[in-house]
C-alpha cells in the first residue's frame, strides 16, 4: 500500500540500531511481513533498494519471511487459515471471521559489521 513509507521506516530503524551498536554497515535485514498486512513484497523490495542508496545499508540483502494469515471464526469457534482479509471461513463459509494473525510488519534482525 505505501511501500515507500515502510521502506523509509525500516531505514530509520536500521540507522538507529547501527548508531547504537557503532556498526559501520548493515549487510542484511530480516523482516517478517504477514500475509494479511496489505504489503506488496516485491514493491517493498524495490523501494527498499531505492531508499537505502547512499545510506549505511546500501546494497544490504533483504530477507522477508511471510507470516501466515489466521482468523477466528465466530460461528465455528475455531482458528482457521485466511488467505485474505475478506475470505470466508474455509470450514463453514461464514464471513464472521476475525483476523488474529498475519498482519505483522516487523524488522526481526540485522546483520551488521
Amino acid at each position, binding site marked *: *500500500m*505505501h511501500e515507500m*513509507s*515502510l521502506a523509509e*521506516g*525500516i531505514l*530509520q*530503524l536500521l540507522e*538507529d*540500531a547501527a548508531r*547504537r*551498536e557503532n*556498526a*559501520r*554497515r548493515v*549487510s542484511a535485514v530480516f*523482516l517478517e511481513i504477514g500475509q494479511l498486512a*496489505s504489503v506488496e513484497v516485491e514493491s517493498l523490495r524495490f523501494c527498499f533498494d531505492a531508499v537505502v542508496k547512499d545510506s549505511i545499508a546500501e546494497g544490504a540483502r533483504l530477507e522477508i519471511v511471510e507470516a501466515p494469515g489466521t482468523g477466528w471464526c465466530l460461528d465455528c469457534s475455531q482458528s482457521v487459515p485466511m488467505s485474505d*482479509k*475478506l475470505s470466508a471461513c474455509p470450514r463453514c463459509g461464514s*464471513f*464472521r471471521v476475525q483476523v488474529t494473525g498475519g498482519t*505483522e*510488519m*516487523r*524488522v*526481526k*534482525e*540485522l*546483520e*551488521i*559489521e
Partner: protein
Amino acid sequence: MCTTCGCGHDETKIEGHAHEHGHDHDHEHGHDGHHHHHGHAYAPRRSHAPGMTPARMLKIEQDILSKNDAYARENRAFLADRRVFALNLVSSPGSGKTTLLCKTIEMLKGQCAVAVIEGDQQTSNDAERIRATGAPAVQINTGKGCHLDAHMVGHAMQQLSLPERSLLMIENVGNLVCPAAFDLGEAHKVVILSVTEGEDKPLKYPDMFRAADLMLLNKCDLLPHLRFDVDQAIEAARRVNPAIQVIRVSATTGEGMGDWLAWLQARR
C-alpha cells in the same frame, strides 16, 4: 532545523513550522519513548582474519511503524492532557470532506471550539476555506507523500492553540489506501464515502473501512439523480467491518448533520 525535535523535513511543509537547515536529516529526538534500546547483539560470527570486518547478527524485533506509533502516543497524551477530542477524516479525493467540515464548524459555532489540520500534497486552498469560517487551520503539504503521519501532525498541533475540550479535525490526504495504516493519535478514524462513488468501495479498499469507526455517507441530496444503492454500500462496509456505524448526510442541504453532530457530542 526544527527546534522541537531536531527534525528536518525534506518534502513536507507545515505552515508556521520553519526549518533553517532543510538538509539536516538527523532524526535524533529528545523525547522519551522514541528510542528502544532493547536491541542486543548475539551469536557473533566473528572472523579475526586480518582485513575481514567482523559481521554479527543483531536482534531488534521492532514494528516497521514503531516510530510513527511512538509519535502517535505522544500526540494522544498531549490531546488527553487538554481534553481535546481529535478525529482523523479519511476518504477518496472529492468526497466532500472540506465542505462537510465547513458545515460542521458553522453548526458548532458557540457550542465548541474547532481547529483543523489539513493534509494535501500541494496548495493551502483547503486551509483557507476552513479559515474563512473563522476556525483556525494549519495546512500540511506532504509533497510526494500520500498520507499524513503522526510526526507531521504533532508539529502541526504545536501551531494551533487548542483550548480545553475543543475539537480537532484532521483532514487526511484524499486517499483510501495509505492513511489506514498511520495512527495520528486520533480518537477515531471517520471515513467519508460520497454517493457519487461506487457502492463497492468498502470491498475495494477494505483496510480503510476496517480502520474506521464511523462511515459518513455524504452527498445524499444527490441520490434521486443517481443509481446508487445505499443498502448495498452499507452492507459492503459491514462485511468489511461489522462494527462500523453509518450516518447519511448532505453537507449541502444539512440532511443528517444533526445525527453527525450528536455522534460527535456523545463522544467528546
